[in-house]
């Protein structure tokens, strides 16, 4: 064995590094948390990195995991070494092909970041529910529990599959392992070559479909043959575990790291044993060692090869002394006798006895428990509680651990305070903002310590559920031994708080161990900061004897030209005071890393960073801590007292980062949550907010339309209401030819605004003698916060203006109350203005089916959600089914509504004589095409309900239940381009074809935004995206044209930043159209790479350069003898290059390869002009009346 090369990587990179080198074809589809494996492979392929045999693998992104699995199956059949990466729903979509691949005994090893399958809710986090759904496919299941194992088992799985012919699914825990950064020993090409002899590859290739020696697979078999043929594979499965063990033994010879099918750690005479797999087994390993040191006779069996389950190896792994076994499953199978691993263990013990290989004096008793669903923390304390349970005379046969189940009382109690980590492991916790670079700096720190010292290093990062102003918490460990602690740091010797205001929101020092070092980024210096701290923080500092340091990192950053990037500064502080490395050495290493990262970006960037490092040390101060807490300031309550009970009891606890403490009884049983909770979370993340000048304002309401967070709103109201207005509340006379004598106010929600500035950017009203002053200017938030909070409260209490008197225009719609507010979307988001508009226009009668993606995350990610209700309690009813099925899901809404409406109408007709013929007739024939019509119908239904309550028939009761459906319902199918263009297109197309009254809103960011910028078929020609690194060579798919080809679908292409009135008109027309409507909405996005304050301006350029032509195709126009297609934007006025060069996604192609960019730009120019010309011609062509014969 040569000297080991050590690297610091995360689990995804560890697995992908091997998978890439051992394969030729990689077909994937992005899904969290596996996406980085595909992305890395693509990146390596673009850079020309070769596999073990000296050729660059083909990496292809497909339209869905179903597609990826098909491509994998095909590539395997055609003889290539092939792999894929996936998780969760993605893995579920691969199941049909997995049966086929296994049924054909095809060698492959796929790599899965095990992730929760969506049930009552979606979760991106880790458990084994997806993998467990594949037990029956015939794939071997190989579990790794750490970053090192993910690296090693990627190799073992591949070799074992080629040896055994059984396909392998290698999995590791999503996030906990896939995203944990760890120092590991690297498998060299030479070692991989020793592991994988060419004969195995040759045998695989020999089985390929080849017309030179043709065979046929995929036959259809009948009762006479199928059963026997299915049994024919048995010898391969029987032999598989032996192959795996042989490969593991060979691996030990090559690398020195030995694994068994079932690895046992513990006392050779242990009486109590836990059995589990994945990262939890590492924590159990660590805990068992600690318990052994306390004299307990315990042990753990780590399951490596779960399928095929080798009874003999399992039994041999257990000490003969075993009396009680607890099997821990990271999955839930409702209704089963027990979870899968538990059942397997019981069956194995029974089988062993029957086979006569049981070595136990008495069959051990077995209990089973669930743990760690959706990456729930799984700690030594919890494992200890399982051992304690096993020691009881009558332990719970089935239990859960890690939560408090106060409903079915299955949970085990555990000691919240137990901490088994030794002192020589340096633990640190950092609170940062996503945008301040804290995580990046910490990853860099781990690299420095991992690669430049003898220490082992580990980093794990916890992210926010909100995208704007997102916080990150980094958990770092450094120590003299490999780190097995697969759980968050609890007692840190170093706590860094990179944002001063976090002290008011979070219990940052909860993580601090006694005597810890606390570093605070503070605008107040060492003399002033103490008095400004909340009392709770002062008390903790004194009580825990914390050494307290401050630095004004933003000041240092500003003075050294770093803007607001404080990552390098805070990293320097950490090294300077934590003592993990000698100071000088640490500084030299940081500078080396800066040189490496920024060297190519110019000497100035490097210089600025160096200056920042040097200036840091001069500005870092220790604070003298007084003996007494003096502050009168306390941390404010998480939510205000007037918040509803549920929000107080449940939501507020989650907001305080203490959701783990909530018991089972706090939660709804079926995933049903109240709407309108975002308003209780006052995040106050804006540094600046808009300030309104009523004297200059022209009352266009454009600011409200573009606001992504509904944080700036107009209202008109009777002047009499102003009597009770707060003193700083502003108003102006409402300018309107029709509505006289009203007052007008634009009000900002200071604590909900994200400070994106888009409202100010679109404000057209300038002070004539000082044009830099507009009707909206940005001003620092803190001094305005209190007054504007009161003003916003007063504003909300003002009555909503009568909807029936407002016209459907940009200005008019903005007086409608938004029923989507304060979402977690990015600052400046280009999607949410459309969603908000939808809720303003139709929200009180809308059902929304939302495809998975950004819009389902900012729409439905806990703790708080943005969809809300109006004063009558009405608002959008919302659900997210899956990614791929959203069109069909929403279509189902329509079927149900139509059926129930039809039944209600039948009942109404039946009961007409008792209710009153006239009322029944009016209800049945009601014109609900306007706000007034809908309001009138609601009034009629009140009368109807009153009358029905007087009737005693079952028909009357039935009608009372269904009467709601007599008010027109608006069904909206909302999703992004990944859904509409790629994974959900098949369903979408079918819904187009069926022509029922559904409205489809495609939020087109032209890239997979939520999963991090992978190309979709909506990605435009010339744009760089993941899987199109050199710029997409082909134009985006013309979804609008495809929809128009049906003839009966209403189609609109809109861009609110370019022509907001056309957007509003399209929403109105789409909703009123009695068939299928689709609106394809241009959405600027952070994945385009520019400051989104310019979003609307870029949209304008997009339209005027012909990049995004606007049009509406309304089949109703054809009936009037007109062309249904109407172009709403003129022929291209600007060069499309002007639009493209403003965005990083295009510019980076130029920076990578200017010649290629030039070609792509030429192609884009051509595309823009031909496409516009095509629409022009279509406008004419559609105008031809096909019923008339032409001479």
């Amino acid at each position: 064995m040569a000297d080991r090369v050590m690297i610091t990587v995360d689990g995804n990179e560890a697995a992908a590094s091997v998978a890439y080198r051992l394969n030729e074809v990689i077909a994937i589809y992005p899904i969290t948390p596996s996406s980085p494996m595909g992305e890395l492979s693509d990146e390596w392929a673009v850079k020309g990195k070769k596999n073990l045999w000296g050729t660059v693998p083909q990496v292809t992104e497909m339209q869905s995991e179903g597609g990826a699995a098909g491509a994998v199956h095909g590539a395997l059949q055609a003889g290539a070494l092939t792999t894929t990466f996936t998780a969760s729903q993605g893995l579920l979509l691969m199941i049909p092909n997995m049966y086929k691949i296994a049924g054909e005994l095809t060698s492959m090893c796929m790599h899965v970041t095990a992730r929760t399958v969506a049930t009552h809710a979606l979760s991106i986090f880790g458990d084994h529910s997806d993998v467990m759904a594949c037990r029956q496919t015939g794939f071997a299941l190989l579990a790794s529990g750490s970053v090192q194992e993910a690296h090693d088992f990627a190799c073992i799985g591949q070799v074992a599959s080629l040896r055994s012919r059984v396909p392998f699914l290698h999995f590791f825990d999503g996030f906990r392992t896939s995203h944990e950064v760890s120092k590991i020993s690297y498998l060299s090409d030479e070692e991989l070559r020793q592991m994988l002899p060419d004969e195995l590859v040759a045998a695989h290739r020999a089985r390929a479909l080849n017309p030179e020696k043709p065979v046929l697979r995929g036959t259809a078999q009948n009762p006479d043959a199928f059963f026997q043929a299915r049994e024919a594979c048995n010898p391969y499965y029987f032999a598989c575990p032996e192959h795996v063990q042989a490969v593991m033994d060979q691996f030990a010879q090559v690398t020195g790291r030995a694994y068994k099918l079932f690895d046992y750690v513990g006392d050779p005479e242990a009486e109590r044993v836990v059995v589990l797999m994945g990262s939890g087994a590492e924590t159990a390993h660590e805990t068992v060692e600690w318990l052994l040191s306390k004299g307990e006779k315990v042990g753990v069996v780590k399951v490596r090869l779960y399928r095929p389950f080798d009874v003999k190896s399992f039994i041999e792994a257990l000490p003969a002394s075993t009396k009680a076994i607890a099997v821990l499953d990271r999955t839930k199978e409702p209704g089963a006798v027990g979870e899968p691993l538990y059942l397997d263990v019981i069956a194995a013990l029974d089988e062993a006895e029957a086979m006569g290989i049981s070595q136990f004096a008495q069959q051990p008793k077995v209990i089973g428990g669930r743990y760690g669903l959706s990456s729930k923390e799984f700690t030594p304390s919890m494992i200890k509680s399982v051992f304690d349970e096993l020691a009881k005379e009558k332990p719970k046969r089935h239990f859960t651990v890690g939560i408090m189940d106060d409903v079915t009382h299955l949970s085990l109690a555990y000691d919240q305070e137990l901490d088994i980590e030794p002192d020589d492991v340096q633990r640190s916790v950092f609170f940062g903002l996503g945008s301040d670079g804290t995580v990046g700096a910490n990853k860099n720190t781990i690299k420095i310590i991992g690669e430049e010292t003898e220490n082992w290093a580990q980093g794990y990062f916890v992210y926010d559920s909100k995208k704007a102003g997102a916080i990150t918490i980094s958990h770092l460990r450094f120590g003299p031994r490999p780190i097995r602690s697969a759980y968050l740091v609890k007692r840190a010797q170093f706590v860094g708080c990179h944002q001063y205001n976090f002290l008011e929101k979070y219990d940052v020092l909860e993580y601090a161990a006694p005597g810890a070092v606390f570093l605070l980024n503070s605008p107040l210096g060492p003399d002033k900061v103490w008095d400004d701290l909340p009392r709770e923080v002062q008390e903790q500092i004194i009580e825990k004897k914390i050494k307290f340091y401050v630095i004004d990192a933003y000041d240092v950053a500003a003075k050294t030209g770093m803007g607001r990037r404080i990552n390098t500064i805070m990293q320097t502080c950490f090294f300077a005071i934590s003592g993990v490395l000698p100071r000088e050495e640490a500084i030299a290493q940081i500078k080396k890393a800066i040189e490496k990262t920024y060297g190519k970006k110019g000497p100035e960037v490097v210089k600025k960073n160096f200056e920042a490092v040097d200036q840091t040390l001069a500005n870092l101060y220790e604070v003298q801590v007084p003996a007494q807490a003096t502050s009168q300031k306390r941390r404010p309550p998480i939510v205000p007292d007037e918040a509803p009970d549920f929000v107080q009891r449940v939501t507020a606890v989650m907001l305080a980062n203490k959701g783990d403490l909530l018991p089972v009884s706090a939660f709804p049983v079926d995933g049903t949550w109240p709407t309108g909770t975002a308003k209780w979370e006052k995040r106050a993340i804006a540094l600046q907010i808009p300030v309104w000048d009523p004297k200059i304002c022209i009352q266009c309401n454009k600011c409200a339309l573009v606001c992504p967070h509904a944080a700036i709103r107009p209202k008109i109201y009777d002047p009499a209401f102003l009597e009770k207005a707060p003193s700083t509340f502003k108003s102006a006379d409402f300018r309107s030819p029709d509505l006289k004598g009203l007052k007008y106010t634009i009000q900002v929600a200071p604590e909900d605004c994200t400070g994106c500035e888009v409202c100010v950017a679109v404000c057209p009203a300038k002070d004539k003698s000082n044009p830099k002053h507009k009707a909206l200017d940005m001003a620092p938030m803190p001094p305005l916060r209190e007054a504007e909070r009161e003003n916003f409260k007063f504003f909300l209490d003002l009555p909503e203006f009568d909807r029936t008197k407002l016209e459907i225009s940009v200005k008019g719609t903005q007086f409608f109350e938004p029923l989507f507010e304060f979402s977690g979307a990015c600052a400046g988001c280009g999607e949410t203005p459309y969603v908000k508009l939808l809720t303003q226009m139709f929200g009180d009668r809308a059902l929304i089916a939302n495809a998975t993606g950004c819009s389902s995350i900012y729409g439905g990610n806990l703790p708080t959600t943005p969809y809300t209700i109006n004063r009558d309690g009405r608002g959008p009813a919302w659900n997210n089914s899956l990614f791929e099925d959203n069109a069909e899901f929403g279509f189902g809404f329509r079927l149900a509504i139509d059926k129930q409406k039809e039944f209600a109408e039948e009942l109404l007709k039946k009961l007409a004589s008792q209710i009153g013929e006239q009322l029944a007739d009016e209800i049945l024939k009601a014109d609900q095409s306007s706000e007034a019509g809908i309001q009138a119908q609601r009034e009629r239904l009140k009368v109807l309900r009153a009358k029905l309550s007087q009737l005693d028939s079952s028909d009357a009761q039935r009608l009372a239940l269904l009467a709601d459906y007599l008010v027109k319902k608006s069904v909206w199918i909302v999703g992004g381009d990944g859904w509409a263009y790629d994974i959900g297109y098949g369903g979408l197309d079918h819904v187009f074809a069926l022509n029922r009254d559904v409205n489809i809103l495609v939020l087109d960011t032209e890239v997979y935004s939520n999963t991090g910028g992978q190309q979709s078929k909506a990605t435009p020609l010339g744009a760089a995206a993941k899987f199109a690194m050199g710029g997409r060579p082909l134009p985006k798919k013309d979804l609008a044209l495809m929809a128009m080809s049906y003839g009966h679908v209403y189609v609109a292409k809109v861009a609110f930043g370019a022509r907001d009135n056309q957007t509003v008109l399209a929403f109105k027309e789409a909703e009123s159209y009695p068939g299928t409507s689709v609106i394809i909405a241009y959405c600027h996005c952070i994945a385009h790479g520019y400051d989104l304050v310019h979003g609307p301006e870029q949209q304008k350029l997009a339209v005027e350069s012909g990049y995004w032509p606007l049009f509406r195709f309304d089949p109703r126009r054809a009936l009037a003898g007109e062309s249904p297609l109407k172009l709403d934007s003129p022929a291209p006025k600007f060069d499309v290059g002007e639009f493209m060069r403003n965005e990083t996604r295009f510019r980076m192609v130029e920076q990578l390869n200017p010649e290629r960019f030039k070609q792509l730009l030429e192609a884009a120019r051509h595309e823009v002009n031909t496409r516009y010309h095509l629409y022009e011609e279509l406008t004419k062509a559609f105008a031809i009346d096909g019923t008339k014969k032409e001479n």
Partner: protein
Amino acid sequence: MDLSTTYLGLKLAHPFMPGASPLVDDLGMVKRLEDAGASAIVMHSVFEEQILREGLSTLEAIEGTAESYAEALSYFPKADEFRLGPDQYLEQIRKIKESVSIPVIASLNGSTPAGWIEYAKQIEQAGADALELNVYILATNPWETGETIEQRVLDIARAVKRAVKIPVAVKLSVFYSSLANFAKRLDEIGVDGLVLFNRFYQPDIDIENLEVVPTLHLSDSSELLLRLRWLAILHGNVKASLAVSGGVHTVTDAIKALMTGAQAVQMVSALLRNGPEYLKSIREGVVAWMQEHEYESVVQMIGSMSLQKCADPAAFERANYMRVLQSYRI
């Protein structure tokens, strides 16, 4: 007929060349310019500030959004390979050098002392035959004296001269209070050439939207007069070679520029209007005129109408203004 000239110490077949412009972004266009007989290629300026800003904004777009959200640790393909420094410009120098056999003069506008020196060195390494320094910065600071501004340019020119071995020209603006003195001082530190003069984008006002908007006007022959005067004044007073830039549109313009002292005649607007082949017709026109007027060489013409040599030097200094006024008839 001897059209050859020496500019920045480079022996050129004749004085006519494209001036600094985006024309040379395109290699095809560079070839056409060479085919049209350009005696050298002058590249547009690489702007250090622009590169720095672009670099920082790309970094911000990529890094500012990264590592913030669990599902998307980044939004762009990894940027290691993206070239955010002056690489593209340097690459273009290399490509032009590979595709043409005439000298290539690069142009630099720095924004930091380190940048001027570092970029100049890189430009030299990339193979440029000479370097034009585009030194003008709009003097908007009311506390900064003209002397300070001139000193800064002198410092830059001196530093660059020390850093590189290739000839260095300074492209001047007309906005110096004592241009003759300033040119002399540049000459003293060994600058190899002076280019008269820089033209700037002038901002315009949009009265509807109350916005300042950039505009681009091509030059015309009327702009030549200012340059003729200063060529005439400087010729013979400085060792540095002189080039005219701005306002040469016709054969007559070109001849005037040579006669007042230009050793090189740079054209941009005329080529943008008429295509690169126009260079050839200017050269042929000058040849025809020379034949007609029995000139043997361009050298004979250069500076013949300069202040030192022309019959009526006062006309360049002051009288011109007076005579115009006197000749004006109502």
